[in-house]
């Protein structure tokens, strides 16, 4: 859906998405890294299970909710990536204790 600029010289940051290695760039938010990854990163809503992707990218719509390092329902558009970060796509309601 999105491609990176040829001029982007920021350092590579390696994250894991559903266990698979993905290369992001320093300064990416989790949502930006997911959208740039080319993977299917659609979450499922907690109400009907409908698929969604980030909508606003500025912290207001909560359609970018994602599990980061084992913590559910985080706003991926507000969290910068870090080396070794583990991302899981949320399917429905947040699980208890995560």
């Amino acid at each position: 859906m999105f491609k990176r600029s040829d001029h982007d010289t920021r350092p590579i940051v390696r994250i894991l998405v559903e266990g698979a290695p993905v290369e992001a760039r320093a300064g990416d938010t989790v949502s930006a890294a997911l959208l740039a990854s080319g993977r299917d990163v659609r979450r499922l809503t907690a109400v009907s299970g409908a698929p969604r992707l980030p909508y606003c990218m500025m912290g207001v719509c909560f359609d970018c909710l994602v599990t980061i390092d084992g913590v559910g329902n985080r706003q991926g558009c507000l969290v910068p990536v870090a080396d070794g970060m583990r991302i899981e796509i949320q399917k429905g309601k947040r699980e208890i204790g995560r």
Partner: protein
Amino acid sequence: MSAPLKDSYDLVVIGAGPAGLAATATAAKAGLSVLLLDENAGPGGQVWRAITSTPLADRGQLGPDFWSGEALVRALREGDAEVIHRATVWSLDTALEIGVSVGGGSAFVTARRVILATGALERPFPIPGWTLPGVMTAGAAQTLLKSSGLVPDEPTVIAGQGPLLWLLSAQILRLGGRIDRILDTTERRNIVGALPHALAFATSPYLRKGLALIREVRAKVSVVSGVTDLAARGEGRLSSVTYKVGAREETLPASLLLLHQGVVPNVNLAMAAGVAHAWDDVQLAWLPVLGQDGATSVEGIAVAGDGAGIGGAEAAALRGRLAALAAVEALAPASLAKLESRESVRAELARAERGRPFLDRLFRPGKQFRIPADDTIVCRCEEITARDIREAVAIGATGPNQLKAYRRTGMGPCQGRLCGLTVTELMAEARGKTPQEIGYYRLRAPVKPIALAELAALPKSKAETEAVVRG
């Protein structure tokens, strides 16, 4: 990223966009102790997002209006204000106590003055299919572009109206991104209302810049005007966009649809603090009721920037300066001599706002894009359609707060940000009332979700404990 260093400050500024940066720099220069709290990773707000970190070093790509923010970022860094990014302000009350979450922990700080510079968000654009993966706001695409250098590379349609649409399109094209078509939803009759304000607009910088952008984009992308009946289609993700021009219906394959029909004040924190708002029939949004230089109905709280009514980045910075000057006058009047006079800033502001009445009227979003048909989802969080809301009105729902009881609209994590305006206008239409009469959600802290453990760690008095542990 750490908690505030002190318990109290002369001034707390919330939001590091143009208004917040200008307010902070001005107040710090006057010697006030200032804390600037901002949700993003760096300064700039939305309009200058990632100004200190964007990978797009070629200044022509983002354009001069973007880089004009550097002066204020510099001014901020030259001053000694305390600045905390990735800070979420979740509570503000009339005692000017601010609940802020930083790095997973919350603290309360108090201020003698607060300037809310929480800016704007994009107006909801509820069309059929707008929740499908692949439908985003134009602002979202611009955020990806500025902060990560990302541009669309699959079939892409941009739809809607307003200056941002053209700026974003030009930026995507400069970076080699893909735009298949632009669907302009501006209603042709808007020009009638806008015309009386054309002279002021013609002498503002908007005109020259706007025309150049439109020329740049039209040279490369086909633009369709007079678009109605816009819809996103697809199973599980966007596959096509349908629309009408006159009686002709067209379908375009697309995997990305970027929507935009202007921006509106981000009112949640101000409303939760008890700041009075009123419906504005020109901007079709709730605006805070303001006295001079951004003063609100709550003593000590001012609103500056687009949160005070949409005026653009230049006006926002000037409003930020004015609100800061008012704070300096109240707290350290002797320091006013070091700063520019308020009269001169007010005159600058009047010039900066000159073109706005024309733009507001020309780009007034059409009713069909504000008050959707029955099957369209209005509340994205609770997945409530326009029909659901009309049915609730039919059995007795009078306004947005009663509607919550019937349908849970606005009770999800976005707290009404993506449905509130639609709900107000839709209920007003269904009940034959004005939006002012219908009103808005009654908002309360936390204005952003906060972890239970964070709340649990806050201070508790004996009386507060005894209000819970009884019997």
